């Protein structure tokens, strides 16, 4: 299938998922927040169920399509560790990540989320450009 069509369908599913969580539980589908509360041990069964479903996603995808989703990692492990720490720190500091701010916050036209998304997209574009220029 066409790459754009796949992205469109994937985006529809992600939006549908956030909608289900909002309608059924009144919760924002913010993955960093849900995972963070889960690791701190202050999360209800709802958060745990969401994360379990999330992890089942690629397994069901494999069962349906016959192959795992593509994952290409070219970055060295030390750099990945640094990047992971920065992502974790930044998403806590910014009270959300791509899912909470990018999916739910943007759709609710939350000014805080718009600021967060503009900032992290711009920083990410700049980082990709810098890393490309350095290596």
């Amino acid at each position: 299938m066409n790459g754009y069509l796949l992205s469109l369908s994937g985006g529809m599913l992600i939006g549908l998922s956030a909608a289900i969580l909002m309608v059924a539980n009144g919760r924002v589908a913010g993955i960093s927040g849900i995972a963070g509360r889960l690791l701190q041990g202050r999360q209800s069964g709802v958060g745990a169920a969401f994360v379990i479903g999330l992890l089942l996603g690629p397994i069901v995808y494999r069962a349906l399509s016959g192959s795992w989703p593509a994952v290409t990692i070219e970055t060295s492990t030390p750099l990945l560790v640094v990047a992971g720490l920065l992502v974790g720190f930044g998403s806590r500091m910014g009270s959300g990540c791509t899912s909470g701010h990018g999916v739910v916050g943007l759709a609710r036209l939350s000014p805080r989320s718009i600021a967060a998304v503009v900032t992290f997209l711009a920083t990410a574009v700049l980082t990709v450009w810098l890393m490309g220029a350095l290596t």
Partner: protein
Amino acid sequence: MSNLSAWRIFAALVSGLVFGLGLSLSGMLDPARVRGFLDIAGAWDPSLAFVLGERWRWRRWVISL
């Protein structure tokens, strides 16, 4: 466990599953694809913009309920 909380946990499981399927299908699980989307000065791959756009449309629909 009451019926309501069982239903809520089930809905969260389905929501997570649909999210995971969406990530798998859209290619957002692939760091190389995400980097391609961010690499506007290089070989830009704009397809992930469709993921963002479509997510947005759904959420607008829910708010209108």
